[in-house]
């Protein structure tokens, strides 16, 4: 390994040159990835500048008039601001509580299944919905919840009511959204936890059994602690796009009757930007949303590093 880390005394430039020469093929291999990030992830960031302009495509980013913070002020002062923020946060929180924990529970359950065949079959069935197109999923949801649809009848029989279309009732939307998310994603997201579970050494379970630990005790004392680092990282990653609730699904499911609970910042951005051609205003709202995301991500990372030492950076 000598020569891998050049002497600390040499200058940065010299070290870089040397490193580059030595690993030029590795650098070459990294090039497409760097290019990808530069072109598709970083250069579009520049476009965010239109949030501070009265953007007109024909005048371009350089020629459009400046608006300063006007669009941000308009948004924060607008009639729907609090409702949008509230809906976005609540929907994200529910998704976090239920949809984030569902794959963990599913992984634990699958892990406990003794029969290998049974486990494979169950797992395959569970992650199948992930490959169904979102449009189809939303079509299914609409059919299930419409007046006279199977899910609608279940609700009608359990709780009574008039059997009205569930997607016409504001209080139902969050539940429908979260449930469809779980159905769609839990199986797929469980894969990563299942992979993490395989790294727990069987000896630990053996030792526990010899000590007389019950199945429940084994889960609590071996499986869960073994999963914890993965859960933490997944949680932090998840918080990073917390405010980006699955707006495509919401767009396909919502209607004005349930805007009260279903309209979120990203659907508002869609309506403003793509339907009303108010690009600058909608960029400003999008940027505002991203800023909250960034704050959440940094905070979560900080807390996690303080508490259990796991963090993204």
């Amino acid at each position: 390994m000598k020569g891998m880390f050049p002497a600390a005394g040499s200058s940065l430039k010299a070290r870089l040159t040397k490193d580059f020469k030595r690993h030029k093929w590795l650098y070459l291999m990294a090039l497409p990835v760097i290019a990808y990030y530069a072109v598709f992830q970083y250069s579009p960031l520049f476009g965010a500048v239109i949030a501070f302009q009265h953007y007109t495509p024909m005048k371009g980013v350089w020629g459009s008039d400046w608006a300063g913070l006007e669009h941000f002020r308009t948004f924060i002062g607008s009639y729907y601001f609090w409702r949008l923020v509230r809906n976005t946060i609540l929907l994200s929180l529910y998704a976090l509580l239920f949809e984030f924990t569902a794959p963990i529970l599913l992984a634990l359950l699958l892990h406990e299944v003794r029969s290998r065949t049974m486990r494979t079959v169950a797992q395959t069935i569970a992650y199948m919905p992930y490959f169904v197109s979102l449009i189809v999923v939303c079509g299914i949801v609409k059919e299930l919840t419409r007046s006279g649809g199977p899910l609608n009848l279940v609700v009608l029989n359990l709780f009574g009511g008039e059997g009205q279309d569930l997607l016409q009732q504001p209080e139902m939307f969050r539940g429908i959204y979260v449930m469809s998310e779980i159905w769609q994603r839990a199986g797929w997201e469980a894969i990563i936890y299942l992979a993490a579970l395989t790294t727990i050494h069987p000896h630990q379970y053996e030792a526990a059994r010899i000590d007389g630990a019950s199945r429940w005790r084994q889960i609590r004392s071996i499986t869960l602690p073994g999963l914890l680092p993965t859960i933490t990282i997944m949680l932090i990653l998840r918080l990073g796009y917390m405010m980006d609730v699955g707006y495509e699904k919401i767009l396909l499911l919502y209607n004005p009757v349930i805007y009260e609970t279903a309209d979120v910042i990203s659907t508002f951005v869609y309506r403003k930007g793509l339907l009303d051609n108010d690009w600058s205003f909608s960029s400003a709202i999008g940027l505002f949303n991203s800023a909250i995301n960034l704050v959440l991500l940094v905070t979560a990372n900080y807390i996690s590093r303080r508490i259990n030492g796991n963090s993204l950076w």
Partner: protein
Amino acid sequence: MPSIRPVATLSVLLVATLAAAGCAGPDVSSDINHPASPANTDNKTTKTETSYPIVTESTLTYWLQTPTTLKPSINEVPFFQEWQQRVGVPVSFVEVSPTQAKESFSVMLASGQLPDIIEYNWQSGLPGGPEKALQDGYILRLNELIDEHAPNLKRYLAAHPEIDKLVKTDNGDYYVFPFLKEGGMTTQWEGPALRKDWLAELNLSVPTTIDEWHTVLTAFKEEKNASAPLTILNAPNALQGFLNGAFIGAYGINRGFYIDEQQVQFGPLQPGYRQFLETMSQWYKEGLIDSSFTQTDRKAQDANIVGGNSGATIASGAGFDKWTHALAEHDSTAGFVFAPYPVLTPGETPKFGQEAWMYGAEASAAISASTKHPELAVQLLDYAYSEEGYLFFNYGTEGLSYTLENGEPALTELIRNNPDNLSYLEALGLYTHTVNPGPYVASKALIGSLAATGEDHNYDRWKTDNLKHVLPPVSISAEEASEYARIMADINTLVDETSLKIILGTETIQAYDELAEMLDVLQIGRALEIQQAAYDRFLER
């Protein structure tokens, strides 16, 4: 994103496009609606006649909504092949699905890369309309180009000053090659209708007032077990079925802006709107309106009617023709009878209904400001307004889709009785431009001959005073465009949401009073001011 739903048949497409036309803009004075004839040839003022086919090396790009789903691409549609041949200009079409046209249009504008010709509703399709589009540099002002290179359109507009007034902005700028209509069924095609056989069986006459409608719908529910006696289309807009004034018009108002004695009014601010909501809420509670009505798209509406769950709806005549055929397969007595737009007291003339302006701005072709071939684009588009072009766009190719009998065009067997089992509307979609709006003059005679008319299908029963009350295609000034758009976006969301909640019974009618207050806070006053100014400018044109 709205779901991608291929349009099932062309007849549906006709309904859809005509309905879209309806929202675009109705009329002010009824004399505008005199039947118009195709371009007069005796009024030759322009010297630069174009001789077709033009010989050119250049290709033009042309953005439009997919006209037919019968062929995988527009390039395989005979009409569009023949058009290029006749004009002699090769065209590369950019097709977008009608359900995604709005997003596609917005993305195209934002990209700054515009095709040479863009066929769209430049009036209501973007905030600020044509004035803003001209000012922001998307499209060309066409006045000089039309003077020099579009003798046919120029002649047509000179012969029809009332249309000329509509197709210009307040500043007198021409901005598109317009989709024009000749009146008759080209401007009036939609209204309420009921199952005739049900009415006869129950011994009821065609309802004219809101109270009579209530009686009829209740009877449909109780005697005919209709689960949704009245079904109303509610896509793409939540209150789509009411937008043209059916039922709501009985209360002397409409959902949007309208004119009363030269004053612009906003329907939801009027006491009539409260009455309308109260009545609909009551009907909904009694099960007279489709219980999933906020989710009723064309497919659901078809299912309700063909399945016998509904005995009344609001649709285009072509829609009723289609359903009559579908119902006839199981029940030969099934049929529809057109009903007048409902009113409150018997004998009243309905104030609002579907009747469009002869120019409603939909599917009109603008030329992008970045084009390298403005003259060529103008020449390509001008062909449609010639006598030959009029016949070609409406009737197709002589000898193929029509023949001249005593100087009058008559459709051939290829259209009337298609060998490939296409319906006549589908066949028209392939060989003519008739079923779709576009930059040409739609023939009143042809459209009139396509619909089944008669005692029951009497289009005159749908006559209203609509054109005296509905806003003409006014233009909001470019300066006020984004302010107006923002105010109205918030207001429309609030009105739709509150209205639906009241009708569905989620909230009581008291919510209306809050709505009226909130509208003030959201600056409806300012929006009214902007509309009034636009209307005043229109009157001065």
